[in-house]
């Protein structure tokens, strides 16, 4: 198990190098590079930009710049936000709780939808429940998340006036009920979209597992039907699905960009769109780099979890 993990970690190192190279090149592809923000500012003279360029070391060879950027980034120095001059890390940290709250609740709700739906539609394959959920999941996968958010706002906030249309709490308010009311719509969007994909994977994985001889053998030994499905089949089928859940979770934590900005949820996703509007590349790059790193790391965690549930993974 340890050797398995060590190998996976070692494989991740070149991966992170390639990703960071990609991200770095992207900053420098911008006209004006990291100083692009100053080009359009009439108060900054060209000679000032030239001086800044030299002061910041932007006249050095690209590989040297990459190396010092990477070293600083790995050391936790993510630079300063162009739009308000504060450290990027501080801006990210202050947005993290809101995102964790939204994403945590959404994942729990999505899993609560996924597991029963995936199992039932696999067991009752082709029956009405399966057909209904297959249709619903297809709609969920095809749904543009931002439009789903707008429709929910039109129905529940503008027409019915049941729910607040955006934000995390009412100004000055903030009791538990108020909190839940603000969470309902963004959680619905995220949970429906995620559960649509996940339940399909679980259904497929369950159907494959249920067709295997050991399931028949368990039935033949007289194991009750429910136990066969939950203790034997589900345990085998859930591994690959958990891997997908982990990676999607990493993606969400680093910013449910679309959902957060539609509902003005003050998390990392909104930070990303705000930074995008202001061309605040230092914030954008840090977020992109963090997301990618989180995805790589969560992939390894998912592998480890998979290996714990199903020891055969380590062998292969």
């Amino acid at each position, binding site marked *: 198990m340890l050797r398995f993990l060590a190998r996976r970690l070692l494989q991740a190192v070149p991966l992170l190098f390639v990703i960071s190279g990609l991200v770095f090149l992207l900053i420098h592809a911008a006209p004006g590079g990291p100083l692009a923000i100053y080009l359009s500012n009439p108060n900054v003279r060209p000679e000032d930009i030239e001086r800044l360029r030299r002061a910041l070391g932007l006249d050095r060879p690209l590989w040297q710049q990459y190396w010092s950027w990477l070293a600083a980034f790995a050391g936790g120095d993510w630079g300063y936000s162009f739009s308000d001059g504060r450290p990027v890390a501080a801006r990210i940290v202050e947005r993290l709780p809101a995102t964790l709250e939204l994403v945590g609740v959404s994942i729990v709700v999505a899993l609560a939808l996924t597991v029963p739906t995936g199992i039932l539609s696999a067991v009752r394959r082709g029956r009405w429940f399966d057909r209904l959920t297959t249709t619903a999941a297809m709609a969920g996968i*095809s749904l543009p998340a931002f439009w789903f958010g*707008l429709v929910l706002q039109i129905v529940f906030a503008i027409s019915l006036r049941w729910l607040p249309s955006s934000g995390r709490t009412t100004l000055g308010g903030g009791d538990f009920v108020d909190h839940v009311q603000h969470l309902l719509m963004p959680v619905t969007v995220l949970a429906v979209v995620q559960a649509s994909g996940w339940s399909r994977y679980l259904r497929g994985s369950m159907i494959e597992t249920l067709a295997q001889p050991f399931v028949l053998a368990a039935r033949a030994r007289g194991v009750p039907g429910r136990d066969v499905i939950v203790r034997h089949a589900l345990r085998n089928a859930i591994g690959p699905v958990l891997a997908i859940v982990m990676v999607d979770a990493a993606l969400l934590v680093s*910013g449910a960009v679309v959902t957060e900005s539609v509902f003005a949820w003050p998390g990392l996703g909104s930070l990303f769109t705000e930074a995008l509007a202001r061309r605040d590349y230092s914030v954008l790059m840090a977020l*992109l780099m963090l997301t*990618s790193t989180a995805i790589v790391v969560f992939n390894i965690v998912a592998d480890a979890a998979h290996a714990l549930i199903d020891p055969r993974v380590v062998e292969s």
Partner: protein
Amino acid sequence: MRAPTLLLLCLVAAALAAPALAPYPPDQLDLAHRREAPSSAHRFGTDDLGRDVLARVLYGARVSLAVGVLSAAVAGASGIAIGGIAGFAGGTLDAVLMRATDAMLAVPRLPLLMITASVLQPSVPLLVVLIGMAGWMETARGVRAEFRTLRARGFVEGARAAGAGRARLLVQHLLPNAAHAVVVSLTLAVARGILLESALSFFGVGVQPPQASWGNMLYQAQATLSTEPWLAVAPGLFILLTTVSVNLTGDRLARGDGGR
């Protein structure tokens, strides 16, 4: 022919026939009739400049569908090339290409595209290329896996023994057998391309006004959601109809019962 394919063909036909079907030119301003709710004169209402929403949805269909299909073509071509080379060559080249694929898969697609589009401020053709370049990984993996299993099969060895060169082996024997996997991943790429274009335009970094796309119509609709909610209905419904019918068609292809 099944309903999803039929619906898809109708949507494509409507997009192609937009000049004939649209009741007004898509950019015709009518400041006397701004922000009108749907009526018999304007079936989907008018926007903040008095432009007919139905006309803009029809013209927007051209942009959205074209971006979806062409970006899938770019993704497919690069995916086939990269996956094909990796699966055919094996060894170090394979390892390098697959690590690059893994790296690309670990970078979140939409944020990456949003940054790139904000940096480059792309025209529609460049947007097609960018969305395509962000979507080749799945096809590449599929083609590589297909090639590797095929290489081990008897008929490939037979062809090689009969004196087939590399090119002939690739074009005549490997590619046709990988076609099914490619077609399935391509349909998914079309739906994804349409969703990505609409999301980019929704955030103001995709197709730029005054040219209409379903995404930038929703971007404009969001600003006046509380007073003119109908502006958000039609473009979103059309995105949903298109992606559902594309995905259902892809699903059927994946299960292998074709158009039957």
